[in-house]
């Protein structure tokens, strides 16, 4: 298979502000002023895995189908792990397992009230009160459910705050 040769270079984009580490960034050591971006031939695309657990999955699917027509990747090909829906106690270990399958660099986006904080089920006996109880979250998108455009905005916020994600997303 013919792949373009990997290109290693300095990220001179404006998004990488010298000296400011990205908060909650999962890149080891945080973001230093010299960011190396390896173009491994994937093209400029932020690969998103949607863990659609409940109603929010519908809005998430609507958003992602507008942006990318083909079927989504599995966790192993993804950069961004979206948790959309209620995380029940029974399903939590599997959600965590899917998250652990995502290779670095990875970011987590919590979509909707249930995965932000438990939402309407905050008082339930079998609901995890927010997916950030079991994994680190980078962006929280509020809504019940949020609009599909809110997901695109949330990915925008993610790309603004995390320069590597921004570079993958093709932000100048």
């Amino acid at each position: 298979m013919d792949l373009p040769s990997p290109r290693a270079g300095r990220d001179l984009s404006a998004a990488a502000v010298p000296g400011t580490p990205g908060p909650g960034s999962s890149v080891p050591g945080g973001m230093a002023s010299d960011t190396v971006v390896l173009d491994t031939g994937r093209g400029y695309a932020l690969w998103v895995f949607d863990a659609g657990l409940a109603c929010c999955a519908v809005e998430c699917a609507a958003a992602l189908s507008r942006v990318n027509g083909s079927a989504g990747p599995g966790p192993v090909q993804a950069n961004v792990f979206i948790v959309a829906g209620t995380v029940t106690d029974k399903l939590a270990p599997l959600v965590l397992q899917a998250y652990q399958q995502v290779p670095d660099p990875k970011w987590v986006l919590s979509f909707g009230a249930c995965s932000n904080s438990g939402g309407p089920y905050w008082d339930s006996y079998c609901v995890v009160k927010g997916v950030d109880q079991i994994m680190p979250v980078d962006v929280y998108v509020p809504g019940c459910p949020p609009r599909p455009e809110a997901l695109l905005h949330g990915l925008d916020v993610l790309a603004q705050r995390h320069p590597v994600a921004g570079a993958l997303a093709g932000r100048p």
Partner: protein
Amino acid sequence: MTPGPALTPDAIADRLRDAVAAGSPAGDGPAVLDTEITQDIVTVTVAPPAWVAALACARDELDCDFFDWLTGVDELDAGVAVLAHVYSLAGRHHLMLRTLLGGEPRLGTATGIYRGAGWHERETHEMFGVWFDGHPRLDPLLLPDGYGKVPLRKDFVLAARRDRDWPGAKEPGEQEAARGRRRPPPAIHDGWPAS
């Protein structure tokens, strides 16, 4: 399925009572304990030993071939009630069967009569603690493994609501909710463990 003439609620109650009484062994006490008709839905309360027979009568004598749901109700001191709702597609009549279990709640399984009761009984078992004799697999359905508690019983404390201060407890203009005079948030009944 040949649709017969529509049965009135009273007719349904009478037919079920007769069928159950005919089938249950004499000397065990009355099988059908109570009949209640509310808005064209007949609710028949049977004694626990006659539960399975009553379901069989509902299916065979009253053509109730559609099994809708089975669940429990915690009746506090009276015990745990188990309710089943069945429906006749041909006769278009509903029937609610009810039984009250005191003490250690055990009941015969409905899966021999209605196969679809399997998951309903699993859920009733894990949420109310009712044991169904003869059920092929009474494993937890919705709760995580090793949960151990029965959440839908009335004495189960919902820790999240108990431990969180209700923002509406304050009166307008009050700095802090007055202790002792605290009004409870809605949906928490009297006798709730005081926090």
